[in-house]
């Protein structure tokens, strides 16, 4: 039994380290972009000499060449990892399980289905097994020295060419790794208000801003802020949901947060069913008041 953890960068290697350390065997890590690799106790570190992740066709061919004899190939659940790992799994026709939250017994994987409404335990045939994992379900990592490090050349070009790339907003911590997330829904109304009330409070708390699909679709927030079944999965210490009704699809992305605060004018909103602290109040009053209380 042996594990290859595939990580996008240093932060991602750190995010997957708890899973890797608890996996029950030695593990190697393949970091797909260049940069320092944190001390996570990997037997071997392979670091790909490229600044940006190449498109999936080129990357998949490269990763396929690194599969060796590993029995498990895992990465933290994210858009890039689902894009890439499912293609590699397809190339070698091997099983893959996405969004694993626990390994109840060797060879069994627990994962949410139907927007987290249910949990499925699955078993797989064949090897290697490809997994994308959600770190919140696994132990916190310890700092441990890595073994040897080797550098791999950038992948050869595939047929896909990236012509443009935009990453919005610097400054705030990564949504999936932030200790505090402040999220807003449809009633925020416009991007400037969202930024002032949601972004402003997030900054005060040293946290990240998140949003519902309704807020993203109506242009109030940018797409990478979407939390939920089809957005990011977050599990911060504190999640503040303002003007969010609590659809199954949204809750799928945040219900494992340690403390949930809900602010909503509708006392019957579904979000209150999972909130530790519910405040029935207009968010346009509540959020500025919270900001001033923090001053």
């Amino acid at each position, binding site marked *: 039994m042996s594990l290859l953890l595939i990580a996008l960068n240093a932060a991602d290697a750190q995010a997957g380290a708890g899973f890797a350390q608890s996996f029950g065997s030695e593990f190697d890590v393949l970091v797909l972009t260049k940069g320092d690799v944190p001390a996570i106790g990997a037997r071997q570190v392979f670091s790909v000499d490229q600044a940006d992740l190449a498109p999936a066709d080129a990357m998949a061919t490269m990763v396929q060449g690194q599969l060796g004899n590993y029995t498990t190939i895992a990465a933290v659940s994210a*858009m890039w990892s689902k894009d890439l790992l499912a293609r590699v799994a397809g190339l070698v026709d091997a099983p893959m399980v996405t969004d694993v939250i626990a390994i109840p017994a060797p060879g069994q994987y627990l994962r949410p289905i139907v927007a987290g409404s249910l949990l499925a335990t699955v078993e797989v045939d064949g090897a290697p097994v490809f997994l994308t994992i959600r770190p919140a379900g696994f132990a916190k990592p310890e700092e441990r020295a890595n073994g040897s490090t080797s550098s791999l050349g950038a992948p050869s070009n595939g047929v896909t060419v990236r012509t443009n790339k935009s990453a919005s907003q610097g400054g705030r911590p990564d949504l999936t790794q932030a200790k505090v997330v402040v999220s807003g829904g449809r009633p925020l109304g416009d991007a400037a208000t969202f930024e002032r009330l949601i972004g402003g409070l997030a900054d005060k708390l040293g946290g990240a801003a998140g949003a519902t699909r309704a807020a993203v679709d109506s242009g109030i927030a940018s797409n990478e802020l979407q939390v939920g079944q089809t957005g990011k999965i977050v599990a911060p210490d504190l999640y503040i949901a303002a003007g969010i009704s609590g659809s199954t699809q949204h809750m799928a992305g945040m219900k494992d947060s340690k403390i949930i605060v809900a602010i909503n004018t509708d006392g019957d909103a579904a979000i209150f069913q999972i909130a530790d602290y519910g405040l029935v109040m207009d968010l346009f009053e509540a959020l500025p008041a919270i900001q001033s209380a923090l001053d």
Partner: protein
Amino acid sequence: MKVLVPVKRVIDPYAKVKANAEGTGIDTTGVKFEINPFDEIAVEEAVRQKEKNPAITITVVSVGPEAAEEQLRKALAIGADEAVLIQTDDELDSRAVAHELAAFAQELQPNLILMGKQATDNDANQAGQRLAAKLGWPQATFACAVEFAGDNLTVRRETDEGEETLSLPLPAVVTTDLRLNEPRYIALPGIIKARSKPLTKRPRLTDAKPLVRTVKVEQPAPRQAGVRVNSVAELMTALRDRGAL
């Protein structure tokens, strides 16, 4: 120019779902089924492309039970030209579906396969990528804009950090994200009118077995109900007492 759109019959994404009594699957008694919302977006996108370029023909295909005819009829009503049901009651995973779709694509020889990024029942997010790998075609997942540019396709796609634009040669596989388009509303008469469009049923094309088997389905433990606070001051005190600030 041929566009292939695979569609899946899924449990209504807005329905409250429970595990069945045996704890082996989803309890489907009395729930509605729909076309997977991401697949509906894929059908809509294909139809919008056809509206710009009438030389496009759109084939929709579903791998699933006889009842999936309902979802194929809906896709025809949106504007697809023909439908194929690869009829089976076998339990399939993304791998088995990708094998069926690859066999079908090898027959049809489409220029583009447009499909949902995930099905809202099992949320696996694999079939498109596996299919692209099996066919040896490039892929653009999580698309939010698609444009034909000669023998290439330009796709704007959502990423973890924002967006990027890819240019890929055809044939290719594209999976759709929520913001690609908003599917048109189809009233019942539209669905009835589409009954004259061809729908063929055929048996499975491969004997690919699923590699992932579900052995148990259960309800997650409900989250402990919390408390109501009556003011911002009370909230702040509660959060400070919990050490959350």
